[in-house]
């Protein structure tokens, strides 16, 4: 359950769409210097790193080539073992953040952006409605 906070977590929730976390931040990521909540802290012993930075690092370190079964770029059938893996509930956020990063990079998927601006994501492709005005601040539930 998201709660509004004066010091909200800067990480994004979601896989197919991205939205603000808005949980209260409790620490600062050593890599991106953004404020993050406990749930979006990657499980590391000696450093405080957010799950998004951890996912980027993991994907940068990954060296295995992408070989698609249909030989096409973009979305399509995937290799066995490339899909999401079974994890414990406490590891779900970090694991999904890593799979999300890998999926966006390798499948060319551009998620819907329903959050506030975040320069950390500026190099990534995503979709949003741009009519030249600022956020109206309303929620999805508004009509």
């Amino acid at each position: 359950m998201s709660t509004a906070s004066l010091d909200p977590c800067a990480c994004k929730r979601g896989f197919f769409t991205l939205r603000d976390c808005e949980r209260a931040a409790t620490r600062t990521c050593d890599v991106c210097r953004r404020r993050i909540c406990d749930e979006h802290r990657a499980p590391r012993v000696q450093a405080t790193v957010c799950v998004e930075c951890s996912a980027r690092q993991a994907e940068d370190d990954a060296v295995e080539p992408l070989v698609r079964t249909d030989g096409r770029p973009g979305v399509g059938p995937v290799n066995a073992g490339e899909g999401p893996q079974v994890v414990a509930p406490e590891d779900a956020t970090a694991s999904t953040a890593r799979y999300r990063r890998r999926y966006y990079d390798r499948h060319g998927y551009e998620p819907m952006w329903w959050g506030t601006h975040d320069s950390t994501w500026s190099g990534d492709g995503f979709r949003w409605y741009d009519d030249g005005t600022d956020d109206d601040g309303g929620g999805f539930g508004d009509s």
Partner: protein
Amino acid sequence: MSGLKEHRASLDAAQRAVLDAKVVGGERPALEWLGLLGPVLAHDVRIGEALERVRRRTYAASSTFVGGWIVAIVSGVAGVAPLGVAAGVVVVLALLTIVALRVERRRLRTQDLEGEPLRLTAALLPILAEDAAPGTPVALDLDLTGHRTDAKKLGKSDTYRKGAYHAIVDTFYDDPFLRARVRFADGAQVSIAGRVQSRVSRKTKRSQSNKIKTKIKTKTRTTYEVDVRFPDRNYAAVPTTSGGPSPSGTDRERVRTAPGRTAVRERRVIKAVGPRVALDAAHVVDLVAHAYDRVDPTRRKKLR
């Protein structure tokens, strides 16, 4: 095997109920489902490992049984009585071991779940948890009884001939193993379905040496289907889309607009030869992603 009993005892009542009933149904938050099903999957993996151990031990006991018989016969012919008696004891012990292992195998098989649907669902739940509207449950119906049980048998074909085979009988099975529904934070209603259809062909022919030979061939068709209903207040269909095949060329999709919503249905079929069915949650992720590719946002909002 005692480790298996201890592990089962460590599960809670709801998890043991899943193991016994082999079906899952109800509504819970996604991560609560994961907390329920994760240990069940771990237990099923242990049962699979135990079955493999039983298989290996049965093979070893059978080899010992045959070897003991040969030694007993040879020593009987050669007149070496002590060796013959010893071999006889080995044969009896091997036979008892085989019987015990078959009983154990039968017991384990009654507990064994169809693990692939469970694995697919457990892998999908963290992703659904990310996008689910806060406090919204995932409605889940999961059938873990197996793809080719008697209950899922649709029927048999008449006997027909083809090529060298003079008698072929096809048996058809249909297993709708998964149905899940969840409302996403953006208002999209997402339905996910998985189905395995099988054709088991029993083929009989007469070989060149005039022997009757029978073989069984299994073909499976796994269908993943995703239905996403996007609310008009947030999304509109991409104007150029008029249905038809999706970018991968292997899937089918249908886009329909109605007052208040845009409905996108995506379907992927995976065909395979062989009795084993391998399911992959990545197909479902792809299909939901395809559905989102068929709409554009209609306003700029921030989720609370």
